[in-house]
């Protein structure tokens, strides 16, 4: 299990104990973060699972693909910390990751 510190869109801070080997998007939704819509089901085509991962530099996150960057570019809320949570696998290496749900487009 991997601990995630999550700031929801309304500002509420929660902790989620996430199972490994699923996407961060799935872990967030399983943890009740339903403002993560993930309308495309997790295939990197809609950008409705947009989060900020504020300490990405200290965690071994995979780099953004071009598709992911292009999609994030369509968001009004794109920053350097932006990720699509469907593109990140949960593993123990991410234990303690801080995740902030991005504002809705």
């Amino acid at each position, binding site marked *: 299990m991997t601990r995630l510190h999550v700031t929801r869109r309304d500002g509420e801070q929660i902790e989620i104990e996430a199972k490994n080997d699923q996407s961060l998007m799935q872990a967030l939704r399983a943890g009740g973060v339903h403002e993560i819509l993930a309308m495309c089901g997790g295939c990197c085509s*809609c*950008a409705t699972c947009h989060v900020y991962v504020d300490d990405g530099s200290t965690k071994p996150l995979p780099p953004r693909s071009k598709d992911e960057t292009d999609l994030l570019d369509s968001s009004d809320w794109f920053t350097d910390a932006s990720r699509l949570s469907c593109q990140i696998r949960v593993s123990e290496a991410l234990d303690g990751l801080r995740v902030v749900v991005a504002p809705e*487009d």
Partner: protein
Amino acid sequence: MNSSNEIGELAQRALVHFNAGTTDQAPEQMRVPVTAYNDEQRYACEISNVFRGLPLALALSIQLPDAGSYLALTVMETPVLIVRGKDGIVRAFLNVCRHRGAALCKDGTGKAPRFVCPYHAWSYDREGKLVGMYGKATFGDVDADELSLTALHCEERAGIVWVCLTPGKTFDLGSWLGDFVGPLETLNLEDWHIHDQRDIPGPGWKVVLDGYLEVYHHDSVHGQTVGQYTIGNLLVHDTYGPHQRLVFGRKSLPAMNELPEAEWDTADYIRIIHSVFPNISISGVVGDHCLFSQVFPGPKPETTITKQFVLSAKKPETPQELEQTETFSRMTLQAVKDEDYAIGATIQAGLKTKANKDFIFGRNEPALQHYHRMVERYGKWPQPDVKGATGSGEAA
């Protein structure tokens, strides 16, 4: 404008008729051939020119209350997606993915930041722009700008969303509505509450619309429902280009004869119907309840679907308010479905019998006459036949 002054004037016009036993009249009777109702070629021509060529009042603004609100609906076999953007602007598109044509979402309302095709997860933003494709790197390059959702000309005015169903065809809403925009805006449709929505199957388009355009039938057809409250065969009639305003007297109208003018409650004495060409009736907007009816032709001349909204001035909250709204809703449904459309079904059946070559519209049915003249003008059926036609009724 339906200002209180004007409501007073309308009530006085109605009272003059009531006292004299008269009604607003057309100069002459008019004949319309029965083929205008059931000729399939004519039907196709008029659907194309009228229903697909003109702006239609496709939605109420209150169906799209917030940024991101959407309404997906199928109108005359055309799937339409209407979305309010973050900028507050309402846009309309064909609800058809630009990849392989699946509908992006099911008919209904909701809120969404993106519209994602269920087939291959191509996704579009609220402005219709293609923003994502599943497996984009494998698909190969596409020009996203060229693959935006197909837009339909759309404008919002007077609490109504106006859309032309033909892609690429535009309209000038100001000139289309003309002076009618004033009366429409005073209805404040953006402030009403949707209490109920219902789809009512009915007979053909013109048979149905005819029933919304005269009060001559109220005593005979609606004696147990809305006819209890309205005076039959008394019409105050005004036209605004193709659009019309019909005013009926309520049974309370004669109170104006008894009471001093200072005590008149003129809004209570009349019922106002705004008829937006070609298919909208906004009925009973005086007081707390209103029926907003959209009549959409079916694939053949003999069927329609009426999308009907029961609106209340505010959301009913107390049991008493709820009961009043429910009573209005039930009574109007009975009047429309069990009375008007039931008679209409017999008219539709009778069309085929050739018992009538023509229908005669009386001088007391001026709104019917005006409607059919406008259908002829905008429908552009190449054989003019409305006036004095006697021999053109035989089916070819």
